[in-house]
């Protein structure tokens, strides 16, 4: 397990870092085509990042350590999550640390750090974005934790590789009511966590409707590049987590080196397909009013609660 597992973790992190901007580019391209536009090409987010790294860094007057450290911590937490989640293989050296609760907490830590950075700028929009983000997170976290409970009951553990391996070996579990309900609940909170429609509009220019964008208005240059890369990696990792939990076929469960390239290719394909589907669906959605977002998230919480109930009373076959 040692050598192959280490290679699996390293290649998985590399694929996430290199592929996250491409996923964003693909989603923008799908949206552009459906709107009748030609689109900037799948590689445009990489060109944006390369350009941002060359630009003059600006630190606004009056900002403190929270503002300066947030980009690094956001990328660092996401990198750790990218290494922990079994996207390509469940037999990795970090499998014992890859608890679903740890993953959820690390993602929440990234969110909180960014909200602190938004507050640190002292601007009206930074504080507004931070307060909105915290409202959304407060509604998202209970749903995620309940879904985790629902998914961990059949596997008998909250260990992520154990849950995924359980799904690979017993595919009938994936179609059980508990798994389906938890899947829908997790999909909704993924949209909220990554700032996609209908909760937040990633391409908005209107400060009054922003959530994620409002917190990062003051970043420039390399810091902004890190924030953008971190946000793109979060989207990739969360979509990857969804595919690992609910369509885990192809993920390597053993120590055979031959299964690894296939697992990585399948992971990239599944996430690209899911991302393209999400981008296509977003064309049909409008952004929700902020007052309606709690209703959507309460709905997903209810689904997660039903999933927990179903995992006790309708335990599949």
């Amino acid at each position, binding site marked *: 397990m040692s050598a192959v597992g280490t290679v699996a973790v390293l290649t998985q992190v590399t694929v996430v870092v290199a592929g996250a901007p491409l996923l964003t580019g693909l989603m923008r391209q799908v949206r552009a085509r459906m709107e*009748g*536009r030609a*689109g900037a090409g799948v590689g*445009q987010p990489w060109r944006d990042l*390369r*350009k941002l790294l060359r*630009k003059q860094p600006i630190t606004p007057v009056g900002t403190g350590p929270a503002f300066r450290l947030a980009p690094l911590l956001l990328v660092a937490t996401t990198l750790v999550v990218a290494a922990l989640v079994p996207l390509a293989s469940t037999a990795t050296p970090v499998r014992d640390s890859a608890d679903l609760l740890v993953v959820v907490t690390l993602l929440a830590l990234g969110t909180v750090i960014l909200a602190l950075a938004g507050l640190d700028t002292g601007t009206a929009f930074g504080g507004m974005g931070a307060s909105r983000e915290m409202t959304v997170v407060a509604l998202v976290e209970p749903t995620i934790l309940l879904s985790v409970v629902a998914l961990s009951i059949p596997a008998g553990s909250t260990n992520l590789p154990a849950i995924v391996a359980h799904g690979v070996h017993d595919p009938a579990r994936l179609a059980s009511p508990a798994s389906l309900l938890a899947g829908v609940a997790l999909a909704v909170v993924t949209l909220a966590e990554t700032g996609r429609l209908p909760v937040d509009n990633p391409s908005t220019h209107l400060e009054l409707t922003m959530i994620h964008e409002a917190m990062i*208005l003051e970043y*420039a240059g390399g810091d*902004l590049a890190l924030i953008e890369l971190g946000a793109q990696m979060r989207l990739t990792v969360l979509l990857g987590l969804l595919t690992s939990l609910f369509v885990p076929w192809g993920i390597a469960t053993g120590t055979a080196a031959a299964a690894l390239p296939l697992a990585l290719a399948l992971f990239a394909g599944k996430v690209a397909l899911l991302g393209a589907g999400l981008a296509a669906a977003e064309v049909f959605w409008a952004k929700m009013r902020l007052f309606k977002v709690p209703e959507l998230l309460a709905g997903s919480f209810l689904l997660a609660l039903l999933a927990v109930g179903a995992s006790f009373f309708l335990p599949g076959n």
Partner: protein
Amino acid sequence: MNLLRKIRETGRVAEQAPPAPQAERLPAARELAGSVQVRCVDAGSCNGCEIEIAAAFGPVYDAERYGARVVASPRHADVLLVTGPVTRNMAEPLRRTVEATPRPRLVIAVGDCALNCGEFAGGYGVQGSVADVVPVDLQVPGCPPEPDAIVAALRTVTRR
């Protein structure tokens, strides 16, 4: 479902890309390398130019395919599209916006008003043209300029 049918029937709206404009090489454009984030600043315009800028980023002219994208903050921007004669109230905000934009940055004056105050020259609230207040790198004449002209100016910056 109606929307899906509409999308299928409409197909591609974007016009064929015209040949890339042959203009002077801007040194800043080399560093940007095909990625330009644009922030619009209305320094006192009648909103005619804004409508044309919106059209330039719409489906027909699709400035985004050349690597330009409108952003919400001058800190994220490389290019400022400044429209209108600079009014007394907007002179200081315009200076601060340019100051908040990280280098390398470019200022594009869009429309006759931005170049020489146009219709509003001599008005009591008008401080002067954009070049009187901040250094201008590119000019797009017209009242209002056609979206094609705005896209051509952006393409000299994105070099695509």
